[in-house]
């Protein structure tokens, strides 16, 4: 606060100054700033304290979220399998869910599509859908849990990601596999390597024994039953094995990055 007070020029209206400063922020930062402001407003009412420095509260919450990433990585057991269910328990209809409507979902022509493989891998060749379909596949009936709280049981069939990573000679000591997708506004998401190597993490080509429909991520989604739904990329275009944390569509907006189940 002392630092802020020094910055104030006598005779300048504080409120106008803040309003002008907010206008110079990029759109996303602005939204988050205001959001944090609202929450701090509620906290101020609650405690009667004069909590003005909202950015420091946001910084603290981000630090705790990073700490929670570390706690979750520590709790993560690479051998613990997500519970599986009989096919009779599959949720019908399985919900379509995204930050856009179904009519805005990517429409990808399977014949033209290629999966790009980049980063710390021996073989950087791109893969056609026909080539990927020839890899051994397994089926799983698991629960998809959304960050919003609802959940649904679905049936996904595809190639374990760890088999594919071995096949392309990926450096499995790298920290992340980073996915880029065709969703509007450029969805992307980092997956920690230990989760990428989990036996149930899957490059999914089928839902309910049918070729993956457009609603669920045609031509390929990554099914990660040990993560919340928003960390299950759909409409995948590329994967990159990397040691750099490259952020993600939702992660950058404040969802916890590990978000493990």
């Amino acid at each position, binding site marked *: 606060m002392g630092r802020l007070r020094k910055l104030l020029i006598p005779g300048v209206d504080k409120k106008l100054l803040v309003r002008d400063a907010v206008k110079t922020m990029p759109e996303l930062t602005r939204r988050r700033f205001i959001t944090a402001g609202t929450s701090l407003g509620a906290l101020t009412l609650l*405690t009667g304290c004069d909590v003005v420095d909202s950015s420091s509260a946001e910084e*603290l*919450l981000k630090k705790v*979220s990073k700490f929670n990433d570390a706690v979750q990585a520590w709790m993560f057991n690479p051998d613990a399998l997500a519970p599986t269910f009989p096919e009779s328990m599959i949720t019908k209809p399985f919900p379509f869910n995204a930050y856009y409507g179904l009519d805005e979902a990517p429409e990808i022509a399977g014949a033209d599509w290629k999966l790009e493989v980049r980063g710390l891998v021996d073989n950087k060749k791109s893969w056609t859908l026909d080539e990927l379909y020839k890899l051994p596949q397994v089926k799983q009936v698991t629960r998809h849990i959304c960050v919003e*709280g609802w959940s649904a049981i679905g049936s996904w069939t595809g190639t374990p990601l760890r088999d594919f990573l071995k096949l392309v000679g990926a450096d499995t000591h790298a920290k992340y596999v980073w996915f880029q997708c065709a969703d509007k506004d450029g969805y992307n998401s980092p997956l920690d390597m230990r989760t990428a190597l989990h036996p149930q993490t899957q490059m999914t080509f089928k839902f309910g024994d049918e070729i993956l429909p457009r609603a669920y991520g045609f031509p390929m989604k990554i099914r990660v039953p040990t993560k919340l739904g928003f960390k299950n990329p759909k409409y995948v275009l590329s994967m990159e094995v990397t040691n750099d944390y490259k952020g993600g569509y939702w992660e950058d907006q404040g969802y*916890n990055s590990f978000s493990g189940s």
Partner: protein
Amino acid sequence: MTSLAVSDHQAETATPAKVIQPVWVRMVHWINAVAMILMIMSGWQIYNASPLFGFSFSSNITLGGWLGGALLWHFAAMWLLMVNGLIYLALGFATGRFRRKLLPITPAGVISDTRAALTFKLSHDDLSKYNSVQKLLYTGIIVVGVVIVLSGLSMWKPVQLHWLVSLFGGYDIARYVHFTCMALIVAFLVIHVALALLVPKSLRAMIIGR
């Protein structure tokens, strides 16, 4: 304090009154109050993302602004709630406070004290002794507090802690359990605050100990 010639009555009140609430109880109580309110208000915002029932909570009483912000608050305040709660449970058992203050609870005592409370005949002369209704409510809310943390953990880690989810009968049931516990805590909070205001010396005891 100013006069040396004090009457017997004055001398009695001048001796330090016995401590009703020890300092550790007061500390965990108020830390818990802050943690609970943060958890409840951020929890309401999280609930709004996918309501279990046909209503949502007004944004005037929620914390976080949107789902992502509320989750940051919820998963930060949970540490405060859990660590503070564990200290409370450990000291409550270790010091014998739980045994001394909360037991025994008899149905006959609860019925007669409830009747006395409803007719405003319940005595509050000795705040260091809980009546049967207090014993029941305080023991009950500790149990609810444990269940809300366990159901919350099972929803946070449904794969790593899948045995805990099974204990609740599945992920979806755990959500309802978590919500029900919240509703019980809010109901407790309303009664608790109302009674503390009706008997202000109990509030004073929780602040300054006497």
